[in-house]
């Protein structure tokens, strides 16, 4: 690796390490995510579980609930990655020192690990509480990975945008929902397929939908890399 490239990677790593170091010392994001996720999880399962959803209905409805839990937990805990920088006024120092692309990737990696941790925590508990069997665990894992990445990258960019606005809390949800909707539709479709097995709704197969999900991830990543410097610096 040429010296300049390795320095960029070193910058990304530095941002990533800093995020987690600060996070371990405050545990703010982890607590928020975990608390929110579990509260929603319990509310959902207590309302639905005892009624015992029929298998056919369950495989259609429960994937939606899973992703809603993930989405709202992300909305509760992720924007802080950028909002905190602005509120504690450390953003100025970052603006003067960091390469925007490295900063974006570092933050993205941090948000990604948060989302992955969230999914690892929520999914098994959800499947257990709802007694939801999964026909293709491999597909489910792939969807959680690719879908989780999509959640992370979309949320990171939107968080960077709203961090510089007023009314950040509500604004994040308002702005991120239209952007994340295609992602949600894709992952729900794929999750239903993974749960029910075989061909999913309306004759679509994972072979058609999964590439679309990956394309979404790639598109938003490219858009994020190109738009972040504009959002971050005047």
């Amino acid at each position, binding site marked *: 690796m040429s010296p300049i490239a390795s*320095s960029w990677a*070193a*910058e990304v*790593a*530095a*941002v990533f*390490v*800093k995020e987690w*170091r*600060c996070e371990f*010392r*405050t545990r703010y994001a982890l607590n928020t995510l975990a608390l929110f996720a579990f509260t929603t999880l319990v509310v959902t399962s207590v309302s639905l579980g005892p009624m015992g959803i029929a298998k056919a209905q369950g495989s259609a409805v429960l994937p939606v609930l899973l992703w809603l839990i993930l989405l709202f937990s992300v909305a509760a805990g992720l924007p802080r990655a950028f909002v905190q920088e602005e509120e*504690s*006024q*450390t953003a*100025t*120092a*970052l*603006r*003067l*020192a*960091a*390469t925007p692309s*490295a900063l974006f990737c570092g933050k993205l990696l941090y948000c990604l690990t948060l989302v992955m941790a969230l999914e690892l925590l929520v999914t098994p508990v959800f499947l257990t509480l709802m007694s939801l069997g999964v026909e293709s665990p491999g597909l489910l894992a792939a969807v959680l990975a690719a879908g989780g990445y999509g959640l992370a990258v979309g949320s990171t960019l939107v968080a960077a945008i709203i961090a510089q606005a007023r009314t950040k809390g509500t604004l994040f949800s308002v702005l991120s929902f239209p952007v994340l909707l295609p992602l949600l539709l894709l992952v729900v479709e794929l999750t239903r397929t993974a749960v029910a097995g075989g061909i999913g709704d309306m004759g679509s197969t994972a072979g058609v939908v999964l590439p679309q999900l990956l394309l979404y991830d790639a598109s938003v990543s490219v858009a994020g890399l190109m738009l972040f*410097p504009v959002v971050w*610096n*005047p």
Partner: protein
Amino acid sequence: MPPPLDTRLSFENLRRRFGRLSVLEGVSGEVGPGELLLVTGPNGSGKSTLLRCLAGLLAPDRGTIQYREDDRVLETDERRRRVGYVAPDLALYSELTAAENLEFFARLRRTGPEWGLEVLRRLELPTDRMAGALSSGMRQRLRWGWAMLHRPRLLLLDEPFQNLDAPGEAATRGLLYEHLDQGGLAVVANPSSLEIERVTHRIELGR
């Protein structure tokens, strides 16, 4: 710091408004190697705004800023990363120690933390304390350590001696003079009535 061949900052006709309020109304100036530009004016006259524009933290509505190093004019993005900036609203991570802060920013700036830590040693700031636990005077010393970290040729100082006791002020002023002696540039906004010798240029803002 390597001997600066030709480092020069010049700005012309800078204008900036916030809503109805016109804060900068056509400000011009320049500063060269070893020179110090002092910006004076009453509260609200735009001194901080000017420094933010020069640092690349704020885009002026009109006007130009030109910063050259070694006969090359730097883009705003490059200039932003090259300056050393001290200001009251600049904060570092309170969950990290002073040393950890400098190490982090050194990695971002692709340099080592040694010089920054040396500055903190000179300013007598213990580096193993959490930045959030520092008093306001110590935080100001930390700002200086952060600003000097990458040996910038251009220092932009907004209230640089704020909250410092006499020894701290003497030490930071020494750093500033050393910087100038080595051919560095400085733009200083100092609303207090402190005398600063070695002022080469002056701009007076205000109505």
